[in-house]
């Protein structure tokens, strides 16, 4: 049975159909939670809250977007709410804007073929993880949705109710900021 048929059945009160939708989508939602929130407990909370909300709101689901996009919207809103409460050090919006400003003094060294990235480099992984986690919540979420999960800009625009140009700007700034952090790392390593 395809997604649309399952959604229709679930909407008319077929709980088995809803459970089948949960089974088909739960890994994606759980992984989204792990990526955005960074730990298993919060990802489990996100998973639970997403499907409870989805179950309760199912009668209002009009099918204008795909069921996935709708779930992502619920999950992302929950994640953003949780992220805003977190107290770990985040960079300011000004800092991230500055890193993508044309006048910015970019760290220029071409490390794209650096041997350190050919191996399983845990240090590099930590640096990148820390940099992604330090992005302001909406920047981080947009970066993960687009560059990690592969959602299109228009899907993200729908999920976060933001304009296409805002999404694009935030993706661009996040990328340049992360690039800069990696450049600093490779500079220390002697490129």
């Amino acid at each position, binding site marked *: 049975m395809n997604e649309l048929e399952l959604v229709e059945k679930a909407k008319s009160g077929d*709980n088995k159909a*809803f*459970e089948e939708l*949960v089974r088909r989508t*739960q*890994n994606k939602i*759980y*992984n989204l939670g*792990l*990526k955005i929130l960074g730990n*298993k407990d919060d990802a*489990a909370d996100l*998973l*639970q809250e997403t*499907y*409870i909300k989805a*179950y*309760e709101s199912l009668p209002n689901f009009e099918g204008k977007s795909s069921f996935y996009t709708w779930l992502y919207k619920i999950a992302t809103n929950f994640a953003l709410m949780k992220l805003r409460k977190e107290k770990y050090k985040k960079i300011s919006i000004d800092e991230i804007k500055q890193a*993508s400003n*044309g*006048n910015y003094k*970019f760290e*220029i*060294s*071409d*490390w*794209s073929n650096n041997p350190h*990235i050919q191996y399983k480099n845990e240090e*590099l*992984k930590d640096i*990148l*993880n820390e940099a*992604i986690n330090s992005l302001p919540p909406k920047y981080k979420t947009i*970066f993960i949705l687009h*560059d*990690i999960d592969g959602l299109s*800009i228009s899907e993200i625009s729908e999920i976060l109710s933001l304009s296409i140009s805002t999404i*694009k700007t935030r*993706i*661009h700034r996040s*990328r*340049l900021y*992360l*690039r800069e952090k*990696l*450049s600093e790392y490779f500079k220390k390593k002697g490129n």
Partner: protein
Amino acid sequence: MDCREIIKLISDYIDRELEQVKREILEEHVKVCERCKTILNTTEKTIFLSKKIYKNKKVPRKIEKVLFYQIRIRYKK
């Protein structure tokens, strides 16, 4: 187009969202500008590396069990 304007186009270029004329301008520019070429290469590599740091996992059985319990207790309401 100067370097400042080229850098603004880098993400659209990577995402293949750039119209042909601008794409050609960017491609010509990075052929002669080492700085912009480096920023483009390292930005692409940053995206590539970011994808690599996450490994997709299955929902652990225990978490799945609690999830279905939480959903099912709502059926009667």
